[in-house]
């Protein structure tokens, strides 16, 4: 459980069949994973399930992990995919509603000064297209490099920079009412 043990070493011990080592990895990375999934999906239960899925898959695939890659980025790639799958499943459940999906943007742009800044931020974030939300969160909240984000998302560097830029512009516009708070 010692923080000083590198991730790669914990992975090695997990592969050797030490459950405590994987538990240490869980404790180290769970909070960031939960934060990303929650910000991405907007629902705590969904987020917890996505994170659980990601760790279960990571555990199953530990043999594929290569040490030249940061474990956190490797795990995040699995998590990003789990979140995408969940979002897609949610859209499939609402597939007959897709014609109305564009309207979400319009709904959420209306800031509610009485609702508090945190709530407004959640609303604004939810109004972003998923690929912009994903890129923004990975870049600015999880503080990954563009190279890492490119490996995680499979998108090109210039596309990612554009997504983050647009997300920033959109968030600033949506939350303009809070600028002088």
């Amino acid at each position, binding site marked *: 459980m010692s923080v000083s043990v590198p991730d790669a070493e914990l992975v090695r011990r997990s592969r050797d069949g030490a459950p405590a080592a994987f538990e240490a990895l869980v404790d180290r990375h*769970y909070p960031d994973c939960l*934060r990303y999934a929650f910000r991405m999906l907007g629902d705590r239960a969904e987020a917890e399930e996505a994170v659980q899925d990601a760790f*279960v898959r990571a555990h199953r695939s530990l043999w594929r992990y290569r040490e030249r890659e940061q474990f956190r980025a490797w795990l995040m790639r699995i998590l990003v995919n789990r979140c995408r799958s969940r979002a897609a499943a949610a859209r499939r459940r609402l597939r007959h509603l897709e014609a109305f999906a564009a309207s979400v943007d319009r709904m959420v742009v209306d800031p509610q000064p009485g609702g508090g800044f945190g709530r407004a931020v959640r609303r604004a974030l939810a109004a972003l297209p998923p690929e912009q939300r994903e890129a923004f969160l990975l870049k600015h909240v999880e503080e990954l490099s563009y190279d890492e984000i490119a490996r995680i998302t499979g998108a090109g560097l210039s596309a990612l920079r554009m997504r983050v830029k647009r997300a*920033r512009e959109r968030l600033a516009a949506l939350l303009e009412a809070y600028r002088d708070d």
Partner: protein
Amino acid sequence: MTDRDPLLDRVIAELKRPIEVDPAARRRLLDAVAAGSRRRPAAALLRRAGLVGVAAAAGIVLAVLAWPGADNERDVGRATPVRFALAAPAARDVALVGDFNDWDRDATPLEPVGTGDEWATTVWLRPGRHAYAFVVDGMRWVPDPSAPLAPDDGFGMPTSVIVIPENM
């Protein structure tokens, strides 16, 4: 991108705030890792709803089936067969209760389907408005999250509503 925007700095700081970890969720995760399998998506929703200890999921499928013919003794005069299903992998038993079976927990048990993750039954419903709920393991009332809610009449347990049209 290079410009620092104080508003965006606040936004990012807000989004960076950690989400409090639920120890029960962490425990479930470790259990799932140990079991090498993952839980059903909606299980956490139920747990959060206070259904502690139930790994039942509430992904409820409700589909009106094609008329299968009068193969039982039910009053099929104007009734329509309706399939009720509940994803409840860890449930010991699941029952359907409603105004079509006098809210009798023993009247309409659901049967496990396939691998046992899903429980299902088909009942014949007359046209009209019907209130119903699932009862998991004899005590936990689970509404249908995909159906309209019935108002609580002070009994304190959730109930759902289905409407069977006249011309079905």
